[in-house]
């Protein structure tokens, strides 16, 4: 009797907590609740464009989130996703600008590859430091993020700056460097579809291949894996490379699919959000997809709530912060419950 009640409470209280705080904040600022929620839902489902926006927003979260989840499976917290995203975007942009004459069938895959490799390289140093020397990847990854952001800022003001405009941004990509749209009259590009394919590939990789299994084993018990002959270092490095590579692809889709050029502020904390996406999605591709879409929806709905009811968009950031805190506390209490 007691246990099923406990389980119910265990699932329900986080949702209630988040909802309660949201409503509280809305009431606090004197907003008409009905209008706010109506605005939110209209923002999500109102028209095709809006629906498309959800998936546009979700795509980089999904890709970087997949990357972070691979890292997590090997015990590697990829805090550097933000920087890897930017570096991937830079590499893709460079290819787009300097090789813009190539046909799209060659150019786009090249840009993709550039983004993947660049992102992977950016993750390599923290990764190898952790594997070989046991150096904490936390501080180093954050430093690399800021270095990357400054490199991009420097680049778009100097060597890849658009010569036609005084603003700091790269040249506009040629048509054949842009990802085609999935649905006309929206901004939804094939990047989202690509991300779904990748989610499936990540699932196959982690759960169906030997190498993927090794990665998960190393995250589960590195000592036992070592004693059985698994090369733990190699797996940590590989997971960091893949993690960075996926964040790099996220950068690629943002420049090739959405912005069509490299700019400051390309990412609004997508890299850090991706960590949360991976965590909340339980590090499983299906969970990551769902969480990324939900987060994208939260974002777009929040924008609409602002237009309709004057609710600041920062509400969504608050909600996200609370979700994570609740998630962390729930982890603790569920462990306590298991031990009881």
């Amino acid at each position: 009797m007691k246990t099923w009640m406990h389980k119910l409470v265990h699932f329900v209280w986080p949702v209630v907590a988040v909802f309660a705080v949201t409503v509280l904040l809305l009431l606090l600022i004197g907003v008409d609740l009905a209008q706010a929620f109506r605005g939110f839902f209209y923002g999500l489902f109102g028209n095709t464009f809006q629906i498309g926006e959800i998936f546009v927003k979700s795509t980089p979260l999904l890709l970087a989130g997949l990357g972070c989840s691979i890292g997590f499976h090997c015990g590697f917290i990829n805090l550097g996703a933000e920087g890897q995203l930017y570096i991937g975007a830079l590499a893709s942009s460079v290819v787009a600008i300097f090789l813009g004459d190539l046909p799209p069938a060659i150019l786009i895959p090249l840009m993709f590859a550039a983004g993947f490799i660049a992102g992977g390289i950016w993750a390599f140093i923290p990764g190898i430091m952790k594997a070989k020397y046991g150096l904490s990847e936390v501080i180093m990854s954050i430093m690399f993020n800021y270095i990357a952001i400054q490199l991009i800022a420097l680049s778009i003001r100097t060597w890849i700056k658009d010569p036609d405009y005084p603003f700091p941004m790269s040249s506009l990509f040629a048509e054949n460097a842009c990802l085609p749209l999935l649905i006309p009259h929206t901004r939804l590009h094939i990047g989202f579809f690509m991300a779904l394919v990748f989610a499936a590939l990540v699932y196959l990789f982690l759960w169906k291949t030997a190498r993927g299994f090794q990665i998960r084993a190393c995250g589960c018990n590195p000592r036992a894996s070592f004693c059985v002959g698994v090369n733990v270092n190699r797996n940590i490095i590989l997971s960091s490379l893949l993690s960075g590579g996926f964040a790099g692809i996220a950068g690629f889709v943002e420049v090739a699919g959405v912005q069509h050029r490299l700019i400051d502020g390309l990412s609004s904390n997508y890299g850090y959000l991706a960590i949360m996406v991976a965590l909340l999605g339980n590090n499983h591709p299906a969970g990551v997809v769902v969480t990324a879409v939900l987060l994208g929806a939260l974002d777009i709905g929040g924008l609409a709530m602002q237009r309709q009811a004057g609710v600041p968009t920062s509400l969504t950031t608050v909600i996200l912060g609370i979700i994570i805190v609740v998630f962390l506390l729930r982890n603790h209490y569920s462990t306590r419950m298991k031990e009881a």
Partner: protein
Amino acid sequence: MSETILLIADFLFASVRMAAPLTFAGIGESVSETSGILNIGVEGMMLAGAFSCFLVSSLTSSLLLGILAGMLAGLLFGLLHAFITITARQNQTISGLAINFLVLGLTSFFFLVLYGQAATLPHVRTLAAIPIPLLSRIPVIGTAFFSHDILTYMLYIAVIVSTVFLRKTEYGVRLTAIGENPRAADTTGINVVRSRYIASMFNGLMCGLAGTYMMVVLFGFYIENITAGRGYIALAAVTLGRRNPAAIFFVSLLIGLTEGLQFTLQSLGVPVPSQVFSMMPYVVAVLVLLFSIGRSYDPSALGIPYDRNERH
């Protein structure tokens, strides 16, 4: 000639002010890390302090209340971080990130709600400069270090007190033991949990103070995300300064100097891009980390939740 000297003096003066928030936060973080708790949420706690200070002082017109409010806000988030990492034993990095998001959201939210419609941004009175008699007369050094406001003088005191605290008192010894080998500390009767909570709350308080400083000394007004990554630079400074408050102050000064150097060079027409300067602290931090391979300077228990009953 005297013009250059004046320039240098102003230069140093600005550097001290730039260094102050980094140092306040850095002192708090070094205490926390010494006890074994890593706090990525420094950025969030600074922002919370800045906003609370701004809010309270513009509502009450009292700078003192504003400063206290800022410190309190930081302390509360420090308490939250402590609860998540010590009692709930969750991952310290994730907790810090969550706090950053939460604070960013809350401050932006309330700022927009309260002042979004305002025609002009309310200003906060900034602290007056109080030149120290005699010392402020010393050429260059006097202008640079002894012609500041009271909060900056508090900075000097904080650096000295915290260095003494960590290096010379029994409290510092105990804190070091807790961060290095909590089990050993526990067996001698030291209350590991309580000490870590206090360290974390102190960290929050100092970060809040850093944010407050930005309000009442540096800017005098508030905009969204005013801290703009200074919290992360503070983390770099703590790494570079190896958790020694005096070294952190020195490093922060250097960082402040490079910012000032950047402005000066630009005004002189030297075409070094500002991003190079912005990158500097981070690049140097990475190099320092790379050089510390093999000789770990981190407290052995940093980042690891302490469980008294765990089989060892």
